[in-house]
């Protein structure tokens, strides 16, 4: 409404006279240029605005004075009341709007299409996050099972290593079994008799055997002669003591069968004693020997 009553030339009316002496030197050129046209129109308004208590002509009031006059003293006029009513409405709307913007999220004032767009974006985001979650879940399951598998494989490998170690003589073994003691006072026990005894024990299911201090393994050999027996090149002397781990109920009869090892030895003036034991410890060890040429063909 004010664009049409915008009298630009009017407003510096009162200001020009008292402005010039006060702030003249500091004014920029633009400001001075703006004041210039007003000088012609404002020449009569040189009444001192410094004493507002004495305005000679009410028409020549400055804007500031009009504002002050409107503010104080309060006058209940129709104009004031109407404006107050409208401003009351404005304040109300302002406060409501500010409040609703404050205590709610930004969604409250949003329009429908914005809300739909936001909802779509949220849906998409949810979808993406769900996808990512399921992907990560899969990955985690995979990792867990694979680590379980690796652990299981390690466990089995360790067990196998132990079993093979017992067979290869690289680890000590213990378990139920028998002790076969062959005493040979007359020196007539030959290496092949001991070999027969060993084969009989193996056939009866012996799992770990030690002769005196020598661990018996697959490549064990006997050499020498009666009364001077070497096992794997190492001399052993009577009494020959076989420590055998296996099922005692199988091992003992295998040695004692008629015409078996014990009877054969006794024919040769040697004595053979078989003792069952709940716990036999086979603790003679062999160094693990890495084969020079043979390699595992698995994998």
């Amino acid at each position, binding site marked *: *409404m*004010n*664009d049409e*009553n*915008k*009298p630009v030339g*009017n*407003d*510096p009316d009162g*200001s020009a006279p*008292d*402005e010039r002496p006060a*702030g003249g030197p500091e004014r920029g050129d633009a*400001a001075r240029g703006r004041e210039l046209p007003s000088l012609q129109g404002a020449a009569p308004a040189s009444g001192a605005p410094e004493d507002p208590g004495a305005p000679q002509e009410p*028409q020549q*009031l*400055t*804007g*500031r004075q*009009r*504002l002050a006059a*409107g*503010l*104080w*003293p*309060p*006058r*209940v006029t*129709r*104009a*004031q*009341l*109407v*404006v*107050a*009513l*409208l*401003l*009351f*409405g*404005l*304040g*109300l*709307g*302002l*406060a*409501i*709007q500010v*409040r*609703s913007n404050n205590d709610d999220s930004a969604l409250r*004032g949003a*329009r429908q*299409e*914005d809300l739909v767009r936001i909802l779509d974006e949220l849906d998409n985001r949810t979808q993406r996050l769900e996808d990512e979650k399921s992907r990560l879940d899969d990955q985690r399951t995979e990792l867990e099972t694979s680590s379980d598998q690796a652990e299981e494989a390690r466990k089995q490998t360790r067990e196998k290593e132990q079993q093979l170690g017992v067979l290869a003589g690289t680890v000590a073994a213990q378990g139920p079994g028998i002790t076969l003691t062959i005493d040979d006072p007359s020196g007539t026990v030959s290496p092949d008799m001991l070999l027969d005894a060993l084969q009989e024990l193996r056939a009866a299911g012996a799992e770990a055997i030690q002769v005196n201090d020598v661990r018996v393994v697959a490549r064990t050999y006997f050499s020498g002669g009666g009364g001077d027996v070497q096992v794997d090149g190492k001399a052993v002397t009577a009494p020959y003591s076989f420590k055998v781990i296996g099922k005692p109920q199988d091992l003992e009869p295998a040695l004692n069968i008629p015409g078996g090892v014990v009877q054969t030895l006794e024919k040769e003036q040697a004595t053979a004693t078989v003792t069952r034991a709940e716990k036999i410890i086979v603790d003679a060890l062999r160094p693990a020997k890495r084969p020079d040429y043979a390699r595992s063909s698995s994998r």
Partner: protein
Amino acid sequence: MIAVLGLVVGVVVGLLVRPEVPAVVEPYLPIAVVAALDAVFGGLRAMLDGIFVDKVFVVSFLSNVVVAALIVFLGDKLGVGAQLSTGVVVVFGIRIFSNAAAIRRHVFRA
């Protein structure tokens, strides 16, 4: 003075009572507030210019509000509500600034 009191009372009542705005009016309230602000600044400037007429102020205030709300309503119906709201706010902002400049020249003489 009474007018300023009216504004203050309006703000206080709005903050304290927290009235529920009907959903139909809600999208137009911000625009209406901006339009009313423009009218108020125009009226203040007219008063400083010494050409204030209460009838003109009332009519301009109400018509500003109604026209602004109408424009936004129309924009919503046409599907360009957001853009039109922005346009209306820009226009009112420019007018408020020019009016504020005039008021400033009156009050601060600069």
